[in-house]
């Protein structure tokens, strides 16, 4: 009996164990398998190399280098104090702070020890074989030219994402996709043999070729910096572009920053002011009014207007910049002397409806299509918002706000025979297989006829030859251009005592290769013809030489020839 009872007890116990085994290995199995994989699986990222950014000639503007990041798994660190003391001399970090990192938050399995360090140093650290301390690749973005083109390029944050500029705009192309490897590891982080692992290779980022010419860009930036110093200006922008293709050869802004250490600069230094900031263009804008009036046959370059030096209109009185007697001026003279009163009269003759039409055809009031981060469309009032005075302010570039790039594009339309071309900064992307993929052809639209454009060019040549823009002359090249000097509006309405000075133009006038615009914020003296024109001259001259545009052997004669073709009475030079 006792034996049978013993047997029963044993069988009961074995039966219980059998039930326990079924519960554990079948019923609860999925749960434990999950814990098991969570405990053993470790995903190691393989960062994608960010695509490079090159200028039009393949010079590096932004590149990524593979550095190593040292990190710790505090759960695996055996002796934080000893390990910290061994790391300290290599990293040049106090042992005490390293020890805090290695001890870590008890829940954390990942703490940064040192980010983006030299791979050789990382290897020395790995050779110490410290428990729970590992290294893995983490690329870092480098800008070898430091501040050059910084406001175009933008910068990349420590975690590798483009935070502004081209880096931000083309994030999808540049970034690529990080790969990873998921493998099973033992408690000290060594991979287990005979286990499955998943490997997803990184998709490397693709590179970009910009339309920028690094040397032109660099020169323009230097010139702007000099101008700011010379004229005590707040800020300056310049755009150099090819009128026929819309390619931006240079887009300089001062202040700028060094994207390698963007943290040392203020937010406002990051702005690509040429596209993000708007200003009232003043006289440089008069080309819209005059080109529209010529295109609509309201005036011709030789049409004459009686121009006093002031004009009361509605509740305002408009003045020319310099006092003069009431005189009869041709449209050409109005442009050359930059007469406000004359231009207003041309605008009145054109009429509000047609003026608004040409304002928009020249690309004002809407973004250029460059799609640059933070790009402003400018401020152009809709027709139904016009007040009585708007018909008088718009022709002379008041009550309207534009970006530097919009102005450059408008001048490029005249330079390009009346066809507006969408500006662009990216000429090609490099595909995954290494082949170059050119950007699609830019959008274009005819703004005015070729004849109108030619006549405008002729008049703008006069501005430089004998008008307000004589300081913009480039030896050996015929330059067409226009000054601008505009009072800055102040917050709350009205105008203050500071000015935006600008000069926009193109060269060679007969067959324009480059359009250049220089905008200075609050220079002293205030006049665009005095401050912006010389900067324009320097930048244009450099760009023309750099691009290998042959100087006209006798620019003077060429100009005269062009004038006779236009059946204009040649005027004495200067």
């Amino acid at each position: 009996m006792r034996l049978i009872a013993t047997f029963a007890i044993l069988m009961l116990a074995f039966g219980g164990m059998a039930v326990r085994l079924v519960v554990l290995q079948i019923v609860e199995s999925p749960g434990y398998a999950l814990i098991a994989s969570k405990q053993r699986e470790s995903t190691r990222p393989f960062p994608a190399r960010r695509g490079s950014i090159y200028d039009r000639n393949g010079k590096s503007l932004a590149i990524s280098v593979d550095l190593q990041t040292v990190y710790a798994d505090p759960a695996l660190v055996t002796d934080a104090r000893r390990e910290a003391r061994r790391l300290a001399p290599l990293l040049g970090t106090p042992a005490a702070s390293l020890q805090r990192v290695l001890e870590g938050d008890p829940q954390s399995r990942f703490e940064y020890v040192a980010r983006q360090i030299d791979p050789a140093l990382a290897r020395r650290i790995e050779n110490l074989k410290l428990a729970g301390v590992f290294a893995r690749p983490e690329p870092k973005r480098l800008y070898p030219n430091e501040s050059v083109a910084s406001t175009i390029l933008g910068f990349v944050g420590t975690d590798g994402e483009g935070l502004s500029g081209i880096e931000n705009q083309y994030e999808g192309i540049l970034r690529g996709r990080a790969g990873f490897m998921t493998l099973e590891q033992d408690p000290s982080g060594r991979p287990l043999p005979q286990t499955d692992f998943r490997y997803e290779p990184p998709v490397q980022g693709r590179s970009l070729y910009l339309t920028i010419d690094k040397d032109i860009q660099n020169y323009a930036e230097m010139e702007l910096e000099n101008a700011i110093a010379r004229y005590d200006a707040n800020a300056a922008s310049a755009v150099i572009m090819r009128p026929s293709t819309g390619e931006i050869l240079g887009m300089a802004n001062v202040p700028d920053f060094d994207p390698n250490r963007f943290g040392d600069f203020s937010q406002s230094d990051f702005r690509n002011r040429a596209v993000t900031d708007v200003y009232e263009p003043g006289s440089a804008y008069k080309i819209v009014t005059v080109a529209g009036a010529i295109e609509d046959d309201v005036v011709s370059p030789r049409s004459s207007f009686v121009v006093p030096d002031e004009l009361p209109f509605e509740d305002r009185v408009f003045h020319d910049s310099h006092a003069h007697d009431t005189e009869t001026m041709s449209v050409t003279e109005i442009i050359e002397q930059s007469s406000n009163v004359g231009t207003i009269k041309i605008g009145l003759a054109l009429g509000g409806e047609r003026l608004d039409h040409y304002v928009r055809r020249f690309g004002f009031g809407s973004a250029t299509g460059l799609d640059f981060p933070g790009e402003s469309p400018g401020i152009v009032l809709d027709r139904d918002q016009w007040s009585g005075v708007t018909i008088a302010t718009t022709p002379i570039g008041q009550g309207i706000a534009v970006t530097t790039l919009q102005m450059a594009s408008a001048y490029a339309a005249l330079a390009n025979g009346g066809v507006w071309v969408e500006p662009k900064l990216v000429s090609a992307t490099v595909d995954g297989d290494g082949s170059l993929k050119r950007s699609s052809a830019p959008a274009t639209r005819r703004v005015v006829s070729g004849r109108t454009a030619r006549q405008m060019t002729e008049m703008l040549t006069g501005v430089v030859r004998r008008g307000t823009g004589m300081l913009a002359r480039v030896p050996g090249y015929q330059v067409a251009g226009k000054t601008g000097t505009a009072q800055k509006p102040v917050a709350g309405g009205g105008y203050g005592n500071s000015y935006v000075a600008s000069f926009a133009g193109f060269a060679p006038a007969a067959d324009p290769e480059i359009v250049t615009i220089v905008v200075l914020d609050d220079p002293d003296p205030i006049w665009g013809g005095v401050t912006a024109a010389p900067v324009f001259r320097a930048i244009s001259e450099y760009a023309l030489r750099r691009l290998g545009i042959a100087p006209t052997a006798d620019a003077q004669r060429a100009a005269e020839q062009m004038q006779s073709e236009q059946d204009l009475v040649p005027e004495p030079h200067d």
Partner: protein
Amino acid sequence: MASRSATVTRPLSRPGRASGHASELRLGHPAVLIAGGACSLVVLGLVMILSASSVTSFANYGSSFLFFKRQLLWTILGMVSFGLFCRIDYRKLRYAGYFLCPITIMLLVAVLVPGVGVVANGSARWLALGPLSFQPSELAKLAIVLLAADVFARKRERMLDSFSHTMVPVVPAILILLALVVLQPDLGTTVLLGTIGMGLLFVAGAPLRHLTPVVLAGVAGTAFAALSADYRRARVLAFMDPWADPLRTGYHTIQSLIAMGSGGWFGVGLGASRQKWMYIPNAHTDFIFAILGEEMGLLGTGVVLGIFCFIAYLGIRTALRAPDRFGMLIASGITIWISAQALVNMGAVTASLPITGVPLPLVSFGGSSLLVMLSAMGILTNVALQGERKMARRRARAGAPGKGRSGR
């Protein structure tokens, strides 16, 4: 008696010549089944030891086969011993307990002497024996079975009515052994020794009024011991809720459960355990069942549990059919021993019982455990063999005309 036993064992030693008992060693013979069950466990154990120890062995000694080879050596020794005890008439072991007990006590004392006993993981359990080490507490199990079986066989069941007859001299002897083992400290083996002792008292027919206080005292003593030492209290708490401190006190249990749980129906494949890669400490000793569960799934654990179950059945059957009371007690003692030890080990691995550090009989790595266990299985086989012979003779007499009744 000696001459009779010689004739009984002859068929086993020379089966070919003993034509009269040619059928004795047929496949379904309990002795064959016990031997077969034990051998299956030993072979399975060797396979699992190779798998489970290879990582630790390689990490610590630069060879994956070190533990396996050592165990192989012990297996050969164990098999020789098994064969020997199969042939030796168990009745010759009647006095063995009286020698074995003092020897075991001496060895257990020696273990406690600093410098003599080998200390590992905070307890002194081993005696160094050249390149091998020996664990005297394993011998204590056999000593208790042999001693108690003979003492209770000599006392008539009537005599057990007296409390002092029941207790003396077995219980004091057991208590000395328990005391020495608990000092190592090794609570798991202590509890196991106590269980074997109490099981024998129960089987021998000690009245329940005597047995009850002994069991209660045992339970109380275990509870006191479990809660008196900090590390044991932590183990009990970890048993209650291993997730309270998953990286320290609960670690062992959780890793074991993860191994068992990820096995599923058929396991991750022989040799493919992940948990043996330093996740489970002692993967080849006390937690080999977890690795087996991971690699071979419920199929593997079920087979092992089934074999233990089958051995328990065969053991009790052997006890029921034993030729004499000593044989009955020895068979049930060994059966309770192997079954209880298997259950305590599996209980720890499946988190059904607190972790106590008891190896899985015949499977876990550990030479002395294997050697002593195989010897015990040899003795059990011998009892089964003789029991079957006696039954066969009785059947033969009953079957012979006119002798059916006179045989009684």
